């Protein structure tokens, strides 16, 4: 599905008076501009705060602009504390979980769209049913199991916990994507004596790559942002992600708001950049998965 500005109401407009039409259009623009301010101002304020020194942060009335704005808070957080370790963990967990989820979801989507087999419907239902159970409900049994087998504070234990949430939507999106690719190419490769494994890597994977990119993006962002699972299943400093690190300094009185907001900005920049670069693909695949899923 593409986002196009629909022409559904075009004819309706023509039948109305010209003056009213302009007024309606202006009202709509005004509404959207106010909404844009509501959406952007909070982040703008966080960014401004990140540039303030300890003294500037707590002045009232608040300072909107000052020559004393500087990057000192950013240099502080990179030179003190665990910022580098937290960034490394965030990148590591997000990348590994995303790669694993793409392999699993890709295989499942391929199978569901190209094979006929018994139990296909059952599998489709099995993918959707976890939606019935609130995430927090499963956390207690999993925690109690993890603490028994000693998997708390382990990277692989954490990544496995992320995985079930990263599969259903990507399977739906990739399956829809597969269905739009003609079978002929694969059949031709098969006739030429291509093995199934080779077929997957050399034919299916390239065809599927735009879908994989979209799904990878969504999953990477969702693991990067993950909070509750990481909060529950990790206690050690060296396991903290950026998201968790921000949470733990947020409530510290000793850390001033400039440093806290600088940490917030550092933790949001990678995902916001990824989103901005790929925004079209991101939004379209959100549409796709949500409508058909």
């Amino acid at each position: 599905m593409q986002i196009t500005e629909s022409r559904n109401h075009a004819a309706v407009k023509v039948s109305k008076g010209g003056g009213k039409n302009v007024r309606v259009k202006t009202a709509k623009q005004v509404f959207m501009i106010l909404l844009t301010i509501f959406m952007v101002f909070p982040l703008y304020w966080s960014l401004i705060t990140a540039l303030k020194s300890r003294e500037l942060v707590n002045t009232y009335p608040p300072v909107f602009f000052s020559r004393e704005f500087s990057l000192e808070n950013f240099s502080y957080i990179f030179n003190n504390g665990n910022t580098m370790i937290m960034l490394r963990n965030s990148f590591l967990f997000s990348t590994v979980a995303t790669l694993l989820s793409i392999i699993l979801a890709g295989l499942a989507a391929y199978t569901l769209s190209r094979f006929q087999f018994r139990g296909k419907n059952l599998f489709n239902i099995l993918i959707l049913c976890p939606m019935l159970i609130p995430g927090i409900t499963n956390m207690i049994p999993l925690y109690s199991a993890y603490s028994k087998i000693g998997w708390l504070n382990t990277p692989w234990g954490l990544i496995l916990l992320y995985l079930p949430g990263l599969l259903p939507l990507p399977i739906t999106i990739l399956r829809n994507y597969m269905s739009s690719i003609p079978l002929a190419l694969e059949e031709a490769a098969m006739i030429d004596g291509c093995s199934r494994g080779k077929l997957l890597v050399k034919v299916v994977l390239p065809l599927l790559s735009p879908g994989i990119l979209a799904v990878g993006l969504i999953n990477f962002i969702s693991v990067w942002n993950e909070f509750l699972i990481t909060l529950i299943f990790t206690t050690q400093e060296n396991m903290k992600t950026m998201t968790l690190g921000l949470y733990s300094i947020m409530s510290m009185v000793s850390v001033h708001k400039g440093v806290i907001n600088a940490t917030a900005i550092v933790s949001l920049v990678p995902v916001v950049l990824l989103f901005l670069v790929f925004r079209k693909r991101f939004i379209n695949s959100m549409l796709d998965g949500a409508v058909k899923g």
Partner: protein
Amino acid sequence: MSRRKLVRPYLFLLPTLLILIVYSYLPVFYGIFLSFQDMNPGTGEMKFAGLKNYSRILQDAALGESLKNTLVYVVGATAVVVVFGLIVASILNSKIRGTSFYLTILFIPWVLSDVVVGNTWTWLFNPDVGVLKYLFEPLGIDPSILLNNPKYAMFGVIIVTLWKMLAYNTILLLAGMQNLSKDYIEAAQLDGCTGMQLKRYIVLPILTPTIITVILLSIINCISQTGMILVLTNGGPLTSTQTLAVLLYKEAFVNFNFSSATAMSMVLAVINIAIVLVYLRLTRKTTVDQ
């Protein structure tokens, strides 16, 4: 067909299936089991407790209050998000300039973590030096009560939920509107249908299934919303924003009272399942109607 060929689809699905069974299905059954056990938080020793955990949480006033808070939050946030989603989607659907710019802006809060969202808004709503307090001072309003006064804190949480979730709901509704076939509208116009009539009798009925789906997704999301409320208010001030999900998180991972918490989590799951079942009923009806 060779045996290998028969087995292949199952082999490809096996890893996904294993993950789902171990991490989604088994925990549900283990959770049901745990909710009937009395667990010693220190040693992890378990004793069969029958319905003791359930009767204990039902007698606890905190559960009733958290259910009330959950209801207010779910209904309030869903109403606000769906109404604003409809307004924004219909504006974006009407060919105004800057549609893709607005969509991009709308989506930025949606790609942020609960912690960034919570940090941003608690700072805006800061009761001492907050910028909103300053900006609204000339109007004689102090918006900082929206997170810091037990009477109004839930409103604040709902506003922040709107900020984060608006994009997602808008895009679903926009998709529904763009799927709306032009033929219907043209036919209605030939019959002399105009502006509001068109919206009321043609667009709305066709859009109803999409709206119901959006409402369901919003309800499900709000019922399990834990992280954002934890960061924003930690369930407070007092217990004014302590929904069931937040209460059970604290019971389990702050007080480490797993026995009560699993019983609560079963209550939460049952509510969630009941809502999805109602949804399935509703959608079956609307599709039959058409």
